[in-house]
Structure formats: structure tokens, C-alpha cells
């Protein structure tokens, strides 16, 4: 395996590509007691339309990637979740808009558990009965999400911002859409996306990287096949579809999500755009930002406020969310401050300090093996090296932040989703 040294960060990562196309990253941490493994496919909630084996386009129901995630734990010999739990490890999984990941952490039996993980994810086993039953369980999960005002605000924002792109749909789908999922659908999707060449394995802890590669080679299929081609709809225009959406729910004070629709980064520029977008958010929204402090002092925001950047194939956006008695005024103030900064320039001292803070925050996050493995996987899918962030920071200047404010923080690219208390 290749040994990648990140001296400034005190990290050592081993990397290799198996003949079947699987990329493996191992973050060796001799001083940790537990081990962590993360096995992910580049396939998520937004990948609804893809080319099947016969070359024809295939449309699948919303929520199928998440449904598949639930059913992947089924094996011919029973449920892998329980098999791994019997070893005292805590396996779990998540589905995002662009990725599905399976993981476990444990303090003993790492190699056995790794075998089980690789095996149940790569060998599909679905029956009509078990799919029927899962429909009930997932329908309840969807309803639970619909009762969550934060989820609801977020998805209503995406629906408002995006016109064609499938990121506008809920990752879990709807109770109606998942009713169309059959065992056959799951087999088709598994075949299209759960191929070693479309997947990545990241592990961390006090482990031997060569053993990880050996086990993966033993357990996984040997032949290399590339992933299915996906279609994310007609190209999105830069402007949002709707600028405002509102509904009522049982909440105590209004919740809001404010979205800025961005331009997707070119391949290889994703990490840089993310760091730039996050830093620019800090200029406006961090606890040391003048705008946030002014709105806080005026009682328009409270400490529940925060922001993040998100992207995927064909989409990139910034979200600021929180509670406010007057979300529409928050939107006006954000756009006005962004316009002022774009015209007058960002204070150099503020920019330098925020950059230093962002660097330190990312170093602190490396304490978490879970976060590090997931970041390594995401960066891998984007063709990037996550641990190069110290160098990327160096290339980001205040002028880039001003350009981003000018381009993204404008009326046409901004949408506001509000959840108001019931009368």
C-alpha cells in the first residue's frame, strides 16, 4: 500500500486500489482503543434515473437508495445487524443525497466484523415479503421526518430552490413513492451502484492496513465494472424556482432556512469551493461576525442559528438556518450586508482570523475517526484529497470570498423557507 504522510497534521494514511477498482484508505492510529470502518457507494437519494445494463434509461421511485440501505442488512442467513451486534459492535448506515455508507466501530474482532460488513453490503438478498414489511417501517420513519420542523423547513427550501435537480426530493422519498419499490427494483439498483469500482472503504484505528486490503480482496468480487451512468435532470438555471415558502406546524417560534443557490464546482475544485464557501459563511454568520452580532443584539437571531455548505453532482448551495420572529427581515439584512461587503471589501484582519479559526476547527475534527473516514470517502468520490486542506487554505484569499458574495448572495439566487407557529 502507498503510505501518505501528512506531517503538518500528524496523520498517516495508507491507500491502494484493488484490481476490482475498489479504493481503500486506512488511517492508522496506534493509540486508539477502538477501530472504525466505513464502506460507501457513490449512490444516494438524488440518483433516481440511470442507465441499466441493456443501455435503456431506468426511472426508479424516490427513496429507493435509502430503502436499499435498510434492506442491505438482510442476508440469506438472517440480519447482519444482529450478527454484528452479537460481537458487541454497533453497525449502522446512512443515506445522503449523493452517498450511502455502512459502518461499525468496535474494540475487538475487527477482522471478523470487517468481513461481515463487506459481505452483507456486496451480496444482495431481497425477498418480496421482507420488502413489504420494510414498507411499513420506512413509512413510519418518513412520517417521523414530516413531524420534524427542521427537516420540513429544509426540504421545502430545496424544493423552492431547485426546479429540476433531484436534490429537491426527500432522501427517504414519500409514503406513496416507496410503495412502488419491489425486490426487483432493489436488485437493479444494487447491481448498478454497489460495484467495487463505485465504492470506497475507509478504516481507522490501531489496525494493519495490509490486512484490510487482503480481507477486501478475499471477500469482494474480483472483476472490475464501472458504475452506471446517472441523469440528474435538465441543467438547473442559476436562479431559484420560488423565493419564499411557508407553512405552519406546532413550533414555539418561527423556524427558517435561508438558501443561496450556488454554482457547482468543477471536478477537482470541490474541496476548495467548500472551504471558500464555509469561510465566506463565517464572515456573515459566525459568532464573531459583525452581521450575526448585530442581528443577535436586535433579537432577530438567537444561538440556534448556524450555516453550512452542501454540494453534490450538479448542485451546490449554502444554507443558514435558525429561529427568528422575523425571518424575512433576516433575509433582507443578509443580502444587504453581503452586497456591502462585496462592494466595500471584507476586513482583512477578520478574514485572516476566520481562516486561522477554520483551520484549527478542521484539525480538531481529526480527533474523530468517524468524521475523518467519512470526509476521506466524500473527497475521494469528488476526486480530491481531504487532508490537503492546510494547503488549500493557503490559496484562498479575501477577494475570492468577495467574488462569491457578489455571485451567490443575490435576490434571484436566494430562497427562504419558514415554519410558523400555528395560530
Amino acid at each position, binding site marked *: 500500500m502507498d503510505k501518505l504522510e501528512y506531517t*503538518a*497534521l*500528524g496523520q498517516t494514511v495508507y491507500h491502494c486500489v484493488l484490481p476490482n477498482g475498489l479504493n481503500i484508505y486506512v488511517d492508522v*492510529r496506534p*493509540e*486508539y*482503543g*477502538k477501530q472504525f470502518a466505513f464502506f460507501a457507494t457513490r449512490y444516494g437519494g438524488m440518483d433516481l434515473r440511470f442507465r441499466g445494463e441493456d443501455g435503456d434509461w431506468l426511472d426508479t421511485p424516490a427513496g429507493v437508495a435509502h430503502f436499499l440501505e435498510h434492506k442491505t442488512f438482510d442476508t440469506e442467513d438472517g*440480519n447482519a*445487524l*444482529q450478527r454484528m451486534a*452479537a*460481537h*458487541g*459492535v*454497533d453497525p449502522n448506515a446512512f443515506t445522503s443525497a449523493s452517498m450511502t455508507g455502512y459502518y461499525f*466501530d*468496535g*474494540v*475487538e474482532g475487527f477482522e471478523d466484523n470487517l468481513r461481515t460488513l463487506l459481505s452483507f453490503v456486496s451480496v444482495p438478498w431481497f425477498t418480496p415479503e421482507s420488502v413489504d414489511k420494510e414498507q*411499513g*417501517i420506512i413509512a*413510519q*420513519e418518513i*412520517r*417521523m421526518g*414530516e*413531524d*420534524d*420542523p427542521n427537516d420540513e423547513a429544509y426540504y421545502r427550501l430545496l424544493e423552492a430552490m431547485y426546479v429540476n435537480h433531484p436534490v429537491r426530493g426527500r432522501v427517504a422519498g414519500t409514503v406513496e413513492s416507496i410503495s412502488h419499490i419491489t425486490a426487483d427494483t432493489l436488485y437493479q439498483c444494487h447491481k448498478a451502484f454497489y460495484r467495487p469500482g463505485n465504492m470506497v472503504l475507509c478504516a481507522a484505528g490501531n489496525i494493519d492496513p495490509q490486512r484490510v486490503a487482503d480481507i477486501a480482496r478475499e471477500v469482494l468480487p474480483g472483476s472490475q465494472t464501472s458504475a452506471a451512468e446517472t441523469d440528474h435532470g435538465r441543467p438547473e438555471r442559476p436562479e431559484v424556482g420560488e423565493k419564499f415558502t411557508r407553512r405552519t406546524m*406546532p*413550533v*414555539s*417560534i418561527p*423556524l427558517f432556512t435561508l438558501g443561496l443557490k450556488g454554482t457547482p464546482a468543477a471536478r477537482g475544485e470541490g474541496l476548495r469551493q467548500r472551504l471558500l464557501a464555509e469561510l465566506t459563511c463565517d464572515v456573515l454568520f*459566525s*459568532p*464573531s*461576525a459583525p452581521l450575526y*452580532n448585530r442581528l*443577535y*443584539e436586535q433579537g432577530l437571531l*438567537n*444561538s*440556534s442559528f448556524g450555516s453550512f455548505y452542501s454540494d453534490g453532482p450538479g448542485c451546490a448551495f449554502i444554507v443558514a438556518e435558525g*429561529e427568528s420572529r422575523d425571518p424575512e427581515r433576516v433575509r433582507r439584512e443578509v443580502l444587504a450586508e453581503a452586497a456591502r461587503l462585496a462592494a466595500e471589501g471584507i476586513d482583512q484582519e*477578520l478574514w485572516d*482570523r*476566520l481562516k*486561522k*479559526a477554520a*483551520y*484549527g*476547527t478542521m*484539525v*480538531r475534527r*481529526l*480527533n*474523530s475517526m468517524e468524521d475523518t473516514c467519512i470526509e476521506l470517502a466524500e473527497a475521494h468520490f469528488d476526486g480530491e484529497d481531504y487532508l490537503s486542506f492546510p494547503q488549500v487554505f493557503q490559496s484562498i484569499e479575501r477577494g475570492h470570498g468577495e467574488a462569491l458574495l457578489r455571485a451567490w448572495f443575490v435576490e434571484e439566487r436566494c430562497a427562504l423557507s419558514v415554519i410558523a407557529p*400555528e395560530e
Partner: protein
Amino acid sequence: MQQHWKRLADGVELSVTQTDKFKTGLLAATLTIPLRADTATFGALIPEVLYRGSGHYPDMGKLSSAADALYGASLSTGVRQRGESQCVSVLCGFIDDRYALDGSAVLEPAAALMGEALLNPATRNGIFREEYVESEGANLADRIQARMNDKRSWAIFRLIQEMCGREAYAVDKLGDGETARAMTAERLWDAYRSLLSGAKVIFYYGGAASVERVEDAVRRSFAPLLTGRTAPVDCLVTPEPQGPARTVTDAMDVTQGKLAMGFRTGGVTMGSGDYPALLVCNALYGGSANSKLFVNVREKMSLCYYASSMLDKIKGLMVVSSGVEFSQFDRAQEAILAQLEAVRKGEFTLDELTAAGRTVANSLRSRLDSQSQLEDDQLTRLLFHCDREGEDLIRAVETVTADQVVEAAGKLKLDTVYRLTGKEG
């Protein structure tokens, strides 16, 4: 990893976990007072007002900027509940000196910034600034009201209110909205002064620095706290329900119901000899993906989207939390109780027992890999004088027998059931 402990004065302790496995240091100063309905609002509001600004950094922007300049140190203030105590903390996580781009020390300035935030608040006329108290009072009242937004935790919160209504345990650590809104700078300042002089004080550091360096930084930055004090830290344990099990139902505009059930553990708490058996019993019953509630009630019977159990090891409680369809409340409740009955009768396999023991041991060991969990565990241990260290407890867990689990399950008594249901029409 080495654990150190030192008394700096009566009721003032320093605890250090020395390890270089993290890239960061974590320093915490925690002031602990009894949780009481008439003082809880003060304890919750003080950390919020402290975060608004200090003498040298008189507003939130300046205080946060000072933390940013320390490589994005995560300065935070907050309140926690431990049993029937309220813990007011200032915490700071910061990168280790070896990762500072200019090679400068971070621990000492971080400790100084924490001391500044805690001991030198922004004042006017010798008391807190009225505008900070007023706006944080309003924010706190909003936060208390916002508890109901998350239905899962709201159901547990309401269960505890009903179940422990006559015990200090049910007092909201955030206090009450009315008192928060009506707070004056003068009243809050008095409470702040008595917090500083009367509360039990625990300093905690986890990271690579030497004990001497940490003690020196603490002594320099927190000198006014290093005076003797005798704050009591107690928690009343009610071993048995005080009558037959009660059911309380609320209605809200929700599409999915919540069912929360509270049990007393028969007086078993973290210090008890049979605590390891209770931990294993909980994992077997509802505390893992291999548990009876998960496998049977959720997976086999599809009665709940989630169903799990958890313990409060200080108060001696177990809570089962689940999400159910409105039409399934009775069936789900019966099934949840039937699974407990099965554990009481010893209806579980050796594999289930082994898996439960492993799950507990695994999660206890994993906590040693997290700096914030180390801090949290060490605080609890010091407050309640539980000197059973991580490894001792893990060994005890690994030798728990089936009979001991049956015995622990036999002591669990249902106290209160809480149902959150939808509104008609």
C-alpha cells in the same frame, strides 16, 4: 493514558487525563449547585450572559474573535444536569501546541480566556449589563418553549415531569420561562456571586500537556475560585414507585405517536455492586441493535419505528422511548412490557447475554477515545464519588451472569407511562 487528581482547596478539585492520542486539549471549569426550582433559572441564565462578553472583550463578537485567534478554540458556556445537581461550565477545546502554525502555546492563553469569560464578565455599575440579561432571559424562555419541537425528547421530558414531579430531578435545568423573562441584572448578579463563592468546583483537562503545566495555568487563570467551600452534591434515589403505575396522555398536532415509559431500578445506581448487571440487563432488553425491543418489537412485530431503553445511572431510572402509530399504543405497550417479563423469567440465550455484555464493554471502551466523553464521565465520577474506573467496570460487566441479569430485571418497576397522541380531526 494517565489519570491524575488533586485537591486545590476544600470543594475544589483538578482532574487531568494525560494522553497524546488527541490533536487537541480540552479544559473545563464546572461549578455545581443543587438543582432547585427557585434557583434553576439563575444557573441556566448565567452561562448565557457570560458568553455575551467580558471586561476585556465586552461583546459576543469580540469574545468569539479572541477564541478564533486561538486557532478556532471552541469556547463555550452551558448548563448540564447531573442527578439532582445543576452544573454550570465553561469549556474550551483547542489544538495542541504542535499543530499551531506559528508554534506558540495555546493552553495558557485558552485558560486565560476561559478565566476571563467566567470571572471577569462585562458589567455596568458593578453588575451585569441589563441589556444582556434582558435579551438572554428572552432567549432562554424561547429555548424552554422550543423543547416541544423535538417530539422524541419532549415525550421523555414530559414523562420525567410526571414521574418525578415531587423530586428535584424533575426540575428543568433550564429553569422556567416566566422567571427568565422577568430577570433583572441585580438579581442575576447576586446569584452569580454566590455561585462563584459557594459552588463545588471541578477543573478538568484532557490532553498532552503535563499536570504541572495545567495546574499552573488553572492557578493563574482561576485564582478567585481556589477558596474552600462546602457545596453539597446529593441525589435522592427512590427505589420503588410510590403507587400503581400511572398513565398520562397529551395531544398535539403530530402524525406519529410517542410512547415513553419510566421504571425505577430498585435503588441500583452507578455506585451499587449490581450496577454492572443493570447495564447488561438494559443492553439486553432495549439498549442495543441486538436487544429484545429492537429485534422483537421493532423488527419482528413492526410495532415501532424505534424502541429503545436507557438508564440514568445517578438517579436509578430506566426509560423506554418509542415511536408508534396512534392505533398501536396498547399493542406496543403490551409488547414492550412482555419483553421485560421475558428477561425477568430468564428467557434469553447465552448468545444474547454475551452480546449484551460485549455491547456495554465496547461502548465503555469507546468512550475512552472521545475527549468530551472523558470529561463528562470524569465529572460524574468526581461529583458522586464513584471511584470505579473505566477498566474495573468493564471487567465487572464482562463477568455478569444470567442470574444477575434476571435479578436486575426483577427490580425494575414500572412507575409512569406517557403517551403523546394526535389531535382529533
